[in-house]
């Protein structure tokens, strides 16, 4: 119990820390409003040019709510890789490593503490904007159904970003890797365009990658909350979480022996 409560406390203190400047937090979350407005303009033109009400089962309304969810997940997650890289570069990793907790659990608890409030703010502002533009979501219960998948998405994001962050133990600066990851998530995760709008071969390819489990899966579940989709999304997510956690732990153990702590 004490072991669990230490990670809960880390989560709590990071959450408190993220609330130290509430104005800045709210201000940053407002960014989702112009994003959603741009998406609305873009997809309204696309749907009217195609002269259809739905593309591969998604209406304009579904598409906008789908994009609200992908943006909430993406904008909510903290820059774990960059933080870890900075911890290594400025030597503060020494403090993180010299306490009696698991480094990866520490990073995860801390990342979730930073994520929660930001994500809630994004969901509120993004949701209100989309509601005003295209009306309520077709399946409001989708919000509850999608929650486990959203949490799983953050776990996946954490695994991938932590792996990039761990490479800082060897290469120190990870900006290039985070850039590549972000672009892959944009394209193969379905962040800007739902994967359903891709050609069939590309859909198959993208859906087999972990990026889709971190963005497309939860967002699609939100707009189409069916049992079949829930099982499909959660199973694929579990597969990727187990695989990536295993790789992450191996990479961490290896990275630790390579660590060079700067300063002093």
């Amino acid at each position, binding site marked *: 119990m*004490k*072991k669990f*409560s*230490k990670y*809960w*406390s*880390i989560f709590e*203190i990071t959450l*408190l*820390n993220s609330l*130290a*400047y509430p104005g800045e937090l709210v201000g940053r979350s407002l960014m989702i409003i112009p994003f959603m407005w741009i998406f609305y303009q873009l997809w309204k033109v696309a749907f009217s040019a195609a002269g259809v009400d739905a593309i591969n089962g998604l209406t304009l309304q579904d598409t906008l709510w789908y994009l609200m969810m992908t943006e909430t997940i993406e904008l909510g997650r903290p820059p774990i890789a960059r933080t870890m890289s900075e911890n290594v570069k*400025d*030597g*503060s*990793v*020494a*403090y993180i*490593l*010299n*306490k*009696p*907790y*698991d480094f990866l659990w520490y990073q995860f608890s801390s990342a979730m503490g930073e994520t929660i409030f930001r994500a809630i703010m994004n969901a509120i502002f993004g949701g209100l904007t989309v509601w005003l533009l295209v009306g309520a979501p077709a399946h409001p219960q989708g919000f509850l159904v999608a929650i486990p998948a959203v949490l799983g998405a953050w776990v996946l994001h954490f695994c991938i970003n932590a792996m990039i962050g761990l490479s800082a133990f060897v290469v120190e600066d990870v900006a290039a890797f985070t850039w590549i990851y972000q672009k892959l998530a944009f394209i193969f995760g379905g962040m800007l365009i739902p994967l359903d709008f891709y050609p069939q071969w590309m859909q198959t390819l993208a859906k087999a990658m972990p990026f889709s489990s971190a963005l497309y899966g939860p967002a699609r579940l939100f707009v189409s909350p069916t049992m079949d989709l829930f099982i499909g999304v959660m199973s694929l997510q579990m597969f990727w979480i187990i695989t990536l956690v295993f790789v992450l732990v191996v990479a961490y153990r290896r990275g*630790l*022996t390579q*660590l*060079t*702590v700067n*300063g*002093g």
Partner: protein
Amino acid sequence: MTSIIVHNLQKVFQTKRKAAGLSGSMRSLFKPEYSTVEAVRKISFQMETGELLGFIGPNGAGKSTTIKMLTGILHPSGGEASVLGFVPWKDRQKLAFQIGTVFGQRPQLWYHLPAMDTFTLFGKIYELDDSETKKRIDFLAEAFEIRDLLDVPVRKLSLGQRMRCEVAASLLHRPKLLLLDEPSIGLDVVAKQHIRDAIRRMNQEEGVGVLLTSHDAGDLEALCKRVIIVNHGQIVYEDKVSNLKRKFLTTKLVEVRYAKQVAKDFSVKGAKILKVGRYGVKLQFDSAQTPVDSVITRLSEMGDIMDITISDPPLEEVIAKIYEQVREGKQELT
């Protein structure tokens, strides 16, 4: 009882080298060159339980690297170490329950939150009961005189106040050993004194062993009984601080005040006159060359002495002297 045993500990880093300019960057991209830096070169030493041991040396001497290996953060390239019975890099988490660390240049308190939040978090991390954490915070708040500071966001504290909170936080879980890496860096005289007093008190009352790295010879003089001096990753001197002073503090500084005016041609054989005032004289001599009693006799012959002070030069000078001798190749210092 021995709390630290280090045998032939070694750390070698591979550092990437890059020539200046665009061509250098391009070359480094396709044909990276590495140079080997031996930060710690097979050092061996021991530290007794409850001892106050100074571990000093210039920048890049390998002090911090050694501390980081002793806390288990860095894996050594060779050699062995045991800290409180644990191999640090194999039992890092178990060891963490038994040791406290302060890295003067790296804050561990949450910057935007009151120090109390970090103390409470540490209570959880070190798996203390809430009541135990509270009692311990009360004790540390009194010992370090930080009661009024605990509810202030850390960013609003002065550096001295913050460092007192940092050291107190590292003692929350009653560690048996405290590893202090430059705890007084950037502090003013009063703040340094506060920290030193509190550390001494914790050593006396709770028997906490302290391994201290510092640039500040004052820390060493005020706190440590024994000193290890490192340079270029090697131990160049290891002895009691008192012996260090006796061996290297042969230069004495004397200040005398007379009842009547001092003669303008004031002189003492074997001593260098630094300053002659109306009633006072300041001089310096080497006690290895000129016996102290002959200087005192001569000074009393010059007039009625109202006051006299004989002092050692600052330890910084002594350490500089040792470094100088090491640089000149005279390594037979220990």
